[in-house]
């Protein structure tokens, strides 16, 4: 079967997006080896279907969709062999020590304490710059559900950061009370 040549823009796009995609996968996969595997597969699949991409502006979201599907496919495959994401992370502790900045470490620890379903939309919004509509499409959720998860994620992070380091949160008691008094989205 003859491989279709990708459009000329593929190289440019992949070079500019590869770092962000890998970061996203690092957080999703919790393990750099798995993240690399998924990234590699993602780029191959994206390249093979590049000519089907109708709207160049949707390229990032399109590649991310491929990446998510690939992640879950690999995860399901590995689970058949009793693969556990948490164990994968613990088996490579030297990859997960950051000696640069304690405060950044504390925020990262707080992020890991979030449920996966809360962390991912926050990551898409803050790190990838997705709108709530785009997050809803990527995660196959209603927009209201995305807004609720984002709100709860920030609330939980504030609670955790305040508990471990009152100065780090830099949030007064009144702000926490405000958070607690607000009803999430339906």
């Amino acid at each position, binding site marked *: 079967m003859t*491989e279709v*040549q990708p459009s000329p823009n*593929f190289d440019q796009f*992949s*070079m*500019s997006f*590869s*770092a*962000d995609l*890998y*970061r996203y996968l*690092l*957080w999703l996969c*919790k393990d*750099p080896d798995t993240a*690399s595997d998924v*990234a*590699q597969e993602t*780029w*191959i699949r994206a*390249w093979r279907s590049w000519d089907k991409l109708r709207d160049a502006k949707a390229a990032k979201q399109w590649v991310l969709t491929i990446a998510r599907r690939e992640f879950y496919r690999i995860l399901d495959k590995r689970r058949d062999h009793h693969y556990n994401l948490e164990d994968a*992370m*613990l088996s490579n502790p*030297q*990859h*997960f*020590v*950051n*000696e640069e900045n304690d405060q*950044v*470490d504390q*925020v*990262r*620890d707080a*992020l*890991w304490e979030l449920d996966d379903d809360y962390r991912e939309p*926050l*990551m898409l*919004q*803050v*790190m990838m*710059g997705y709108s*709530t509509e785009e997050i809803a499409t990527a995660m196959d959720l209603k927009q209201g559900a995305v*807004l*609720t998860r*984002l*709100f709860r994620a*920030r609330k939980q*992070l*504030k609670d955790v950061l305040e508990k471990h380091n009152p100065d*780090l949160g*830099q*949030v007064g008691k*009144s*702000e926490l009370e*405000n*958070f607690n008094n*607000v*009803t999430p*989205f339906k």
Partner: protein
Amino acid sequence: MVVKLDCAAFKRACGADPQAVVVQEHLMKHSSECADCDQFYQSMLALDVRLMQAFTVPVAQNSLDEQLSHVQHLSGSVAGIHQDDAKVVSLQAHKESANKNRTTKRPKQRFAWFGAAAASMLMVSFLFTLPTNNVAIAEDVIKHIHHEPNLLTLTEPMTSPAAIDMVLKQMGITQKSNEIKVLAAKLCPIKGQLSAHLVIQGEMSPVTLMIMPGNKTGTKSGNIDSHAFNGRFISSAAGNFAVVGNKLEDIDALKKQVNNSFQWNK
């Protein structure tokens, strides 16, 4: 028509998306009228700055190269990736050196991320006219521009005048004249500090203007020169501007316009 909003609804919206406050008129209005909600908004912005720092894990260039190498092999492309404005630092050297010196820092197993052992940073080459303190900030500015390449293709304003005013107000800046046409304005973290990312109309194409309030590290004015861009760093005690455009832009003329158009509030 501006929709009236109560504090609970504001905090719900802001807690879900702090950036929405700049974009949605009714949220902007409420924030400007309610000190408590404005403080809440500030705390959400501060949290997002920390989140952005935490999410942005350093990634190894050779790892990215390897991920793309299989596609390049399939497509028959020339081997080797050159990422614009990047210089590769050896990962192996970092790993070996860090492993030698590693001691157990914390008794508890914590899910923290890559340190010197696992990371190599994308480096940006700069002219030696930039003092050391500026280089780290300028690196972040250039990385940020690459992160949002779509902003460099704007032909019409995408941010409303009211939203632009709000962003400038956050920075403690007043726009004195309309000499510069602002196409876009948003808040973003640069080196862990809340800054403003503006896109202004240049002679040839859109130009990036980063506004970074405060000057705690004593940065000084200088030139920014990378593979794709050229720019000027304008420093003062109140804060810094970085004006960065493509190589064909008359950056000095733009620098003059920026000085004429924007003023730090006292």
